[in-house]
């Protein structure tokens, strides 16, 4: 099968969905002629024109609020982009309270078909306000769906689903993954929300990982396999809705769980996943649930300090070794 980068996969999804539905409208800073600072929207302005693909002023709250306004008319399907997922903080009210709650608080009379694209993650000296992974903040934001792909295949299928969905989607893209290649079929496919993917099967330990950490976990899995420990790597792909069924089935089999993400450990998505596992499957566990995340301090700008924020293969191997002692 052909291999393409996640950037190309996302670009294909945008192209196909904008072709398919002419109510789609894409906007954000430098997304037009320039093609986006991560080059994900290249060619769309030329193809779909300046009304459906446009550069906005640097005004993140207005970008998100305008998307909400477009969506609730029922006549537009907006796909806004913020240049960095960290900037969701600038538009927090618009995302958390407007995108997430507008439909419900007006009795369900309107729909919210917004797909807000948010590049995230530590990617080389970008500092505390351009490196974060803020997705967990929205796990207690009702009305928001959270998508976080780890492969080009997942990115394409999930983005297409997101755009067609009539509810709000926060679509988190890890910047280091843009250049990563993976198999993507030529034929059209969609990936449903709330369906985790088992990236590697194993009987000994369940590792639940998201975004770039799926790859770190798979690297660790290889090393562990050489030592005779078979881990199962699960990528939830969407944090809301969260596929607990797949996770619990795996836990039943392994009895040992490690959750890995680049988000801060405290209050990260792993905290919620761990809580749900112990609520629903405490007696399937033969060891305490372990979590790896970034330290609970702002991300330093220095490239020499950055590595201490990203969970490493070595840390995963060690955590699995510890779990295997039970």
């Amino acid at each position, binding site marked *: 099968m052909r291999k393409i980068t996640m950037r190309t996969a996302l670009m294909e999804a945008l192209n196909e969905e904008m072709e398919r539905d002419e109510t789609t409208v894409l906007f954000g800073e430098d997304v037009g002629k320039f093609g986006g600072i991560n080059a994900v929207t290249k060619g769309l302005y030329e193809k779909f024109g300046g009304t459906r693909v446009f550069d906005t002023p*640097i005004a993140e709250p207005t970008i998100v609020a305008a998307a909400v306004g477009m969506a609730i008319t029922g006549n537009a399907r907006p796909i806004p982009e913020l240049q960095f997922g960290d900037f969701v903080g600038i538009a927090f009210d618009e995302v958390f309270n407007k995108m997430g709650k507008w439909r419900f608080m007006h009795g369900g009379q309107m729909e919210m078909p917004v797909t807000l694209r948010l590049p995230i993650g530590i990617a080389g*000296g970008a500092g505390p306000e*351009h490196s974060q992974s803020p997705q967990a903040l929205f796990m207690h934001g009702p009305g928001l769906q959270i998508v976080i792909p780890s492969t080009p295949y997942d990115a394409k299928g999930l983005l297409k689903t997101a755009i067609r969905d009539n509810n709000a989607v926060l679509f988190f893209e890890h910047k280091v993954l843009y250049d990563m290649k993976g198999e993507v079929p030529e034929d059209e496919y969609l990936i449903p929300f709330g369906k985790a993917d088992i990236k590697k099967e194993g009987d000994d330990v369940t590792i639940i990982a998201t975004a770039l950490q799926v790859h770190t976990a798979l690297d660790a899995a290889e090393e562990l396999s050489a030592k005779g420990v078979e881990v199962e790597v699960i990528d939830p792909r969407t944090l809301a809705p969260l596929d607990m069924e797949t996770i619990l089935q795996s836990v039943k089999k392994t009895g040992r769980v490690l959750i890995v993400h680049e988000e801060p450990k405290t209050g990260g998505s792993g905290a919620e996943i761990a809580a749900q596992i112990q609520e629903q499957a405490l007696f399937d566990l033969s060891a305490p649930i372990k979590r790896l995340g970034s*330290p609970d301090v*702002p991300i330093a700008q*220095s490239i020499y*300090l950055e590595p201490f924020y990203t969970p490493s293969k070595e840390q995963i191997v060690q955590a699995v070794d510890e779990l295997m002692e039970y």
Partner: protein
Amino acid sequence: MAKTYEKDIKLNDYSKEVLTDFYKTMAKIRKFDENLIRLMQEGKVSGFYHSGIGSEGLSAGSIRQNLRDEDYIFYNHRGCNQKIAKGVPLSKIYGDFLGTIEGTTRGLGAGIVHSADPARGVLGQAGTIGSQLGISVGTAYTSKLTGTDQVTVVYFGDGAASREMLHGSLNWAGLYKLPVIYICENNEYAISCHVSETHAVKENIADWAEGYGIPNCVVDGNDVLLMHEVVKEAVERAKRGEGPTFIEAQTFRHRGHFEGDPYDYVDVEVLQGWKDKKDPIKNFAAKLMLEKIVSEEDLESINAEIDSEIAEAIEKAESAPLPDPKRIYEGLFA
């Protein structure tokens, strides 16, 4: 509508010392920038760098001889122009880029933004451009609260001016008559977007200030003396308790938005025109020599002096150690 600030300035009204200081500050800013780009090319500095080459006059003119250590500035994300003009030691700024403990962040590292030097009134900067517009009304209000004559000068790009925060900030500043001076560094572009594509204005961004009753003007930001004069008037007005001023200073980026930007969205001839005809350093040097205030040799020796100052600063910053990884757990709370 915003008027263009003009003034008939005679070099003789300034001492040779002051004029030389303006030149020296601009030359230092440019050489700092060129050397930083070299360090990036050598792989010693990573991350984004937004070169400030081409707009040195704006910072040197507005800050030198106008602001004291106790006056606050909020610098923008283009180059280190304002920090250098305000006197932050070069070794400390280089140290932030290199991630050594010589940096103002003692090893946490900082790019253009996040260096701070509170003793010199440099209270830092956000990674989210334009956030300084809100913070600056806080420092300015505090001057009023405590009865000092400290002023706050806030720098931001044309692009950052489109943040919603600008309007909240102008409203406060106008309402409470705050001692804040807005300097919009209008280099016509915000990454790839020309200001005409992203701003609804009568004619200039400064026109927005008019609606809040804030005195405003447009000025040639590449004329260091004009910049100096316009800011001097604004500082005096602020100190008299008459409130804010909005200055839109026109300039242009000689390099792309960041190092590595293909910069192909700008007309090559327009760019060349700015480099040839409106270079703030070249033009000022020519003026000083024409009026025989300095000789070519004088300028050469100033430049040589700056070169060795920069070499020493880099040496100091580079030879300082990297922090212990535990550094990240220090200083979150006071």
